[in-house]
């Protein structure tokens, strides 16, 4: 068990259950979802559209829209259970500790505010900029002393800067100063995400930017307070392939520079292979397999995963029909009993209809939830 050897994971989810209460019935969107995310690693959450990946992300952020509700489970972030926090405390976590990037930069940015404003508000809301204002003033003083040594402000400069640096409780900065500092920080952020022409973009409106630039702006908004964890919900799905590559490359670099942990949600296995360290495969609201990237692609254990990988079209082999997984994604108001995949599974047995398979460590660090591998070494707790 890896848990004993390494430190505590930065995010630990256990038994997450989320339902949506609609007119037709309760949609059991997430059923007993459990996985870990360790510091500094990129976790890929993979699955078809509608399998519950976004709902998982929203559940972590506690932004599940009506009529959804988180019914059960624990989400431990840095040791604290997020589901036990009240609204105010959760607000402090969002944006500051955990940030989220969404899929469609066009609809996910406010069209009537400038890019600069939207980044600045995150900074102003979460960070206390008193120290930064102080630093700015000190720098200004030093600049005046260098450029204009005869100015009256220079008198007693040494003592002034010493005093400023030593101040424990900096005075409350004026609005103007705050604005200047925030603007500086915003420009810094824009440069950090490699935005072209940051001085222009900061005052532009979202509709004036291209898709890739918008997504960079969203990334800037997310990272402006140096969160520890960032969740990317299909962040590149709506972009062109070339832009996709750019953004992914950017995310890689930023991850290293800021020492982030990333949860990357996607349905594109190619991206996962390139970008992620660890994969969690979801199907119809349950986790079916979790392991490292290389182990998954070399040796997919769960029938669903092997079906997915077999369905990838290849040009140099198999000139016949494309392989598919027969059947359809189930209606989650009445999900299949037992294992949710059993109606489509080529290896389904009698027990699959009756019992939900438990997540089991079949090979070291390779966990599957399937009755084929009902052996000891149970995963979890």
């Amino acid at each position, binding site marked *: 068990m890896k848990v004993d050897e390494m430190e505590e994971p930065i995010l630990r989810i256990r038994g997450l259950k989320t339902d949506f209460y609609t007119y037709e019935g309760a949609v059991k969107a997430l059923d007993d979802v459990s996985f870990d995310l360790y510091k500094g690693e990129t976790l890929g959450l993979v699955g078809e559209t509608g399998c519950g990946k976004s709902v998982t992300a929203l559940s972590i952020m506690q932004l599940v829209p009506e009529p959804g509700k988180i019914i059960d489970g624990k989400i431990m972030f840095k040791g604290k259970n997020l589901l036990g926090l009240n609204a105010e405390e959760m607000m*402090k976590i*969002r944006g500051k500790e955990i940030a989220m990037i969404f899929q469609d930069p066009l*609809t*996910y940015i406010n069209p*009537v505010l400038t890019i600069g404003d939207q980044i600045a508000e*995150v900074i102003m809301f979460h960070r206390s900029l008193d120290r930064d204002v102080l630093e700015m003033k000190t720098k200004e003083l030093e600049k005046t002393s260098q450029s204009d040594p005869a100015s009256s402000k220079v008198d007693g400069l040494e003592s002034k800067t010493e005093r400023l640096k030593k101040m424990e409780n900096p005075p409350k900065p004026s609005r103007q100063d705050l604005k200047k500092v925030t603007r500086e920080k915003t420009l810094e952020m824009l440069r950090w995400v490699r935005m072209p022409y940051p001085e222009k973009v900061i005052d532009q409106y979202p509709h004036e930017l291209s898709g890739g630039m918008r997504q960079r702006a969203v990334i800037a908004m*997310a990272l402006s307070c140096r969160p520890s964890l960032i969740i990317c919900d299909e962040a590149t799905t709506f972009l062109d392939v070339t832009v996709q590559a750019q953004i992914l490359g950017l995310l890689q670099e930023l991850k290293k520079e800021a020492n982030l942990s990333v949860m990357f949600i996607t349905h594109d296995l190619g991206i996962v292979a390139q970008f992620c360290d660890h994969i969690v495969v979801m199907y119809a609201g349950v986790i079916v397999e979790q392991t490292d990237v290389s182990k998954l692609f070399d040796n997919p254990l769960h029938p669903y995963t092997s079906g997915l990988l077999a369905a990838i079209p290849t040009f140099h082999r198999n000139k016949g029909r494309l392989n598919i997984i027969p059947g359809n994604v189930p209606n989650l108001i009445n999900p299949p009993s037992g294992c949710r995949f059993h109606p489509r599974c080529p290896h389904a047995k009698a027990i699959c209809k009756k019992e939900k398979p438990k997540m089991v460590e079949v090979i070291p660090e390779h966990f599957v939830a399937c009755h084929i591998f009902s052996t000891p070494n149970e995963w979890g707790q």
Partner: protein
Amino acid sequence: MRELAKSVRLRTYVIRRLILAIPVLFGVSVMTFTLSHIVGGPIGAVASYVQNEQQLHNPAVLDLLIKQHHLDRPLYEQYFYYLVELINGDWGYSRTGRQPVLNAIGQYFPATFELALVTTIISLVVGVAIGIVSAVRKDRPIDHVTRVFSLTGVSMPVFWLGLMLQFMFYYTLRISGLPYLPSSGRVDIFVALDYPLQTITGLYLLDSLLTGNLPFFLSSLHHIILPSLALSFTSLAMIARIMRSSMLEVMRQDYITLARSKGLSEKVVIYRHALRNAAIPTVTSTGLMFGALLGGATLTETVFAWPGLGKWATAAILTTDIATVMGFALIVAVIYVTVNLIVDLVYGFFDPRIRYG
């Protein structure tokens, strides 16, 4: 290159709107022309220029007027001269106002404007607040209460509400010997005599404040309360409804989810993100509403004997004073078109997507 395209797009947008307005004004003038011939009664369109009863029955004067205003020519020529007169400022003579129509408009317009302005301000402030509260607390008791309130406002017969207010705040208070609100007019006649007003804009409240004429100000305030309350009830309800529905629409948008994921407080999300987007349709509707109010709060002015355009026109129509009526129609159409244009421009100002193409 993109900059050039952007500014050109904005300019063409504005010019196009202006051009579309002109045929509408033309069309209205055709209607007024036609109606003044039809409704003029036995003597026809010359009634627009007749100044009093005696002239009406004096054939010599009538003949003179007909020749003067080219009413003996064929119809299409008459229309041409009619247009020329309109542009030159001769809109006929208002028997009800005892002055040329344009002068009468100049006299009565400020009263209507003042009433419309005060009403719009009240409606905007209260309506927006109600709309926001109603949207944020959707389906809770307060939402149902405000919705019924709004619906009542839209269903309210304005003239009846005015009468009710008069009864409550004038009659009942007066009977009980308490201080009461006046039921008619813009200002107390005795106050107007003792403290005459220096007219600058024609808006009593503004002018009296600017010239430091406190008694006049108080009296005008006193007099404007009831009529503006009656009028604003309906407008307020409408603004609340529009605000509520656009807020609801905005709150469902994706960027609100992003704003929340940034960890911003609910207040910031509502007031900074949602409101700015929801305000756009509300502001434009308010502008249009203001234009409509300018066009004659006829019924309210009648009930409260408010000396504005609506009362003037109603009195005229009851005495078949066509010049007044048509003049009123024309000015209202002009106001309507102008307000529409301004609203379009304001919309462009608020929504940067329109501004920059």
